[in-house]
């Protein structure tokens, strides 16, 4: 049974697709931060990326270094077909579940929280 994607995993996969050839640690982190405001830690991100790679959803390759990286090489990520399929599937599930709930959610979200007695 294929594992379903967690929200964070989905965000990372989408960022990689969005970035194309320029997807490595810094840009992926930035993309997530810019789009969602989530300032994820580099350690957490790489742990998750490693897991996604293990599941065959992404592939990575060693890239070049840059002067400000003190000789440390970049690791570039690329989406694999299986990854793209899982993204589609996850998004279909979310859309299916959320269909038609927009107005209701808006009402619920704007309601004031009731005080507990």
């Amino acid at each position: 049974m294929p594992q379903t994607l967690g929200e964070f995993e989905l965000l990372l996969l989408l960022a990689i697709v969005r970035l194309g050839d320029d997807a490595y640690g810094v840009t992926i982190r930035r993309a997530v931060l810019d789009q969602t405001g989530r300032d994820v830690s580099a350690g957490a991100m790489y742990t998750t990326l490693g897991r996604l790679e293990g599941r065959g959803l992404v592939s990575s390759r060693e890239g070049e270094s840059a002067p400000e990286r003190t000789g440390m090489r970049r690791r570039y990520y690329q989406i694999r077909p299986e990854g793209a399929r899982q993204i589609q599937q996850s998004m279909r599930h979310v859309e299916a579940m959320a269909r038609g709930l927009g107005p209701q959610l808006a009402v619920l979200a704007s309601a004031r929280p009731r005080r507990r007695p």
Partner: protein
Amino acid sequence: MTHAAPRPPRLARRLLRLGLAPDLRECVLGDLDEEFARFQVARGRIRAGAWYWSQAVRSVIRAHAPTHDHHHSSRTLMPQLAHDLRHGIRQLRSQWSVSVTAIATLATGIGLSTSLFTVVDAAWLRPLPFPNPEQLVSVKISVDTPGGEATMSPSLNDVRAWRAGGRAITHGAIDRGARPVIVDAGGPERVSVSVVSDNYFEMLSVAPMLGRTFVADDMSRSRPLVVMLGHAYWMTRFDGDTAVVGRTLRLNNQVAEIIGVVPAGFYTSVAVWRPFQDVPESRRGHGAPIVLRLREGLSHDAASTILAEETRASGAGRVLGVRLTSLHEETARGGRVTLQILAAAVAAVLLLACVNVAGLLLARGTTRRREIAVRASLGGSRHQLIRMLLAESLVLAVAGGAAGVLLAWVSLDGLVALLPLSIPDTTTVTLNTAALAFAVSVSLTTTVIFGTVPAIRLSRVRLIDALSVSDRRTVGSLSRRSGQTLIAAEVALAVMLVAGAGLMVRSFVRLAGVDLGFDANTFLALQVAPVDPSPTVSAAYYPALLDAVRALPGVVSAGAATQLPLGGRQRAGVVALPGRDFLRIDVRLMTPGFFETLGIPVRNGRMPTDADRVSGRRVVVVNETTARQLFGDYPALGRIISFKSYDADDVRPFEIVAVVADTLPNGARSPRRANVYTLFEGTEEVATAPFVVYVRPRGNAAGLGDRLRATAVSLGMPVVVDSIRPGNAFVADNIAVPRRRMQLLGLLGVVGLVLAMVGIFSVTAFTVSRRTTEIGVRMALGARPAVVVRTIIGDAAFPIAAGLLTGLVGSYLASRLVASFLFETSPHDVVTFVGVTAVLAVASLGAAWLPARKAAFIDPVSAMRAD
């Protein structure tokens, strides 16, 4: 560009390197470096640093935790710990008074021990700040002399032979130490001048910051005098001018060329370094200590055997042995016993604080038995309960530790000022990593151990017992016993601390009450010297100064002598005793007026006058010890004795014209010595010795000091006024070390007493609150309040008595440690021990009485209803 850009915080980067899995290291570090560089340009260095730190910490924590499935994340270590910690803080806030007491207790113990650890570290543990300090030794040789075995410094020839032999040492040099000398570099002043030989700086591997160090040629008096400057002196006197080499200054009115500057931090109190000139090459026992650097890996024993062999082989005298002392040992030796005592006292305070916290935590834990039982019955595992209690202890430990470090930081300067010992000036006393690590480990261990003991015990509680109401009616036998043990331990520790303080106070009172042989409250001492040290200048200056001073209004008498009050021994001479031994005497110069001004009683005879000096009669005043040792019960007046006078070259006869009372040369603890006083003739060299002018004012001496200073500099020649001080300032200085010792041990005694009282109070209060129901029942059945109070106090009285007894036995055994500091006071002083027992008994019972009294006011009805 990369090199100019600031790097990420080093420590954070190291944390990352250690915390990350190896396969993540390169990409994470690289990414963060890259982002840091950008962040730093966009938002500034500080915010970039903060961001980097947050990334580092979070990366290390989260890199190990699975992040995708949130329903699992509550089982990972960090969020659970955070939860426990938050819970711990809430718990501590809910029991505010207990927490504050525990934190204050911990802070006291940790603060005091941290600052004292810092001091012990600086004064004692830290090695000398030179490369391979263990190779540095000071050396003495034992020589067979007609008078028996004598220990002395080796001669320079000895050192040369050892170096030439090359088997034991690589360097050897003279280090005669520092003395105050008048130095003129843009205005004469007295500064600390250290006298060393060539090879000294090379031996310590100290390279000059500027210029060069001393060479063999500089050691000869026929060569021009050269000096090196201390770093601080160079900075203040020469504004750190790098062109200072080649310039000159005057040292003792002698021109000296500056050849170099020593690096900062090297013996900071020394202003000027000069070579030891014209040391007799073959003379041993020249009074100049010699330091050697041993060959690498050579033990002291092996080295001293080789050195003794080499000395014998060189055929210079009969050498019995060579004694080596590690230089570090020698530097730190003075304060060793003091530091041991302090360490012991601080350990006692720390232990007391720990016992206190243990009591508090145990008491608190017991009142929470039911809460914990409820948690357990609702499914909390034992493991979880222990972890919860542990987190609470951890919060307590961190708070107490932080407060303790703060206290240490605040109290350190005051403590150093209070220290009864001097810190070597090669080290500075600041809170360092070692001290902080010490504080942290102490606080963590203490609290975690004592916080976990109740946790483990509580988690073993049988639910049914803890939940049943009946459990609260009586005190569980275990916790009652442990409460009593704690009280006994606290009393015992406090007795030892207070006994130490009491002995010091008693000894100090006796010390301060000793008659020193002169009246310290009635004179001012003016220490002044002409810049030109030649005898003709002194001969003109001092009599003129005395005349001018005597003419000042408000001056009753004035006189001078080569003796500071309590200034220690002076030039030693010997008087030949016919047919017998020699008598060693201290020879001092004085002028008429000296004895009256100092209030030294004249036992017999008349004072020498200027008429004696003019007539050329040689007269001498002797003290009672001299008279007794020379002539026993026979009258000394009119007798002739012969000795080498003050820095004279030959023995001359003197007629005794007066006998004066003994003065103690070095304070209350110094033995009486044979002293003689001859008249200052004007031919002696006194500028380098402390020739002191004494002035007795009429009534209030306010403003006289300024007038004396004005008079001293107004006589038409350059002089340096070192000090103008009242006589009792010298007395205060003389007993400053015992006073500080008393204050410090007194402080520790008071802290110990207070901690013990707090501990007894809290344990007793806890007992009372546990027995509320029982007391209510008793009172309902007709027990009078006095009986209730007696019962509660009686509960504490037995452990208090046991603690007193243990403490007294402990003090009796430990007081040998302080014996060497006691003046005319037995380390087993009965009065002190009885007093301490009384104080502790009263204070302890008082601490138990306060909560006990509360028990007497318990309302029976509400007490029985309680819970």
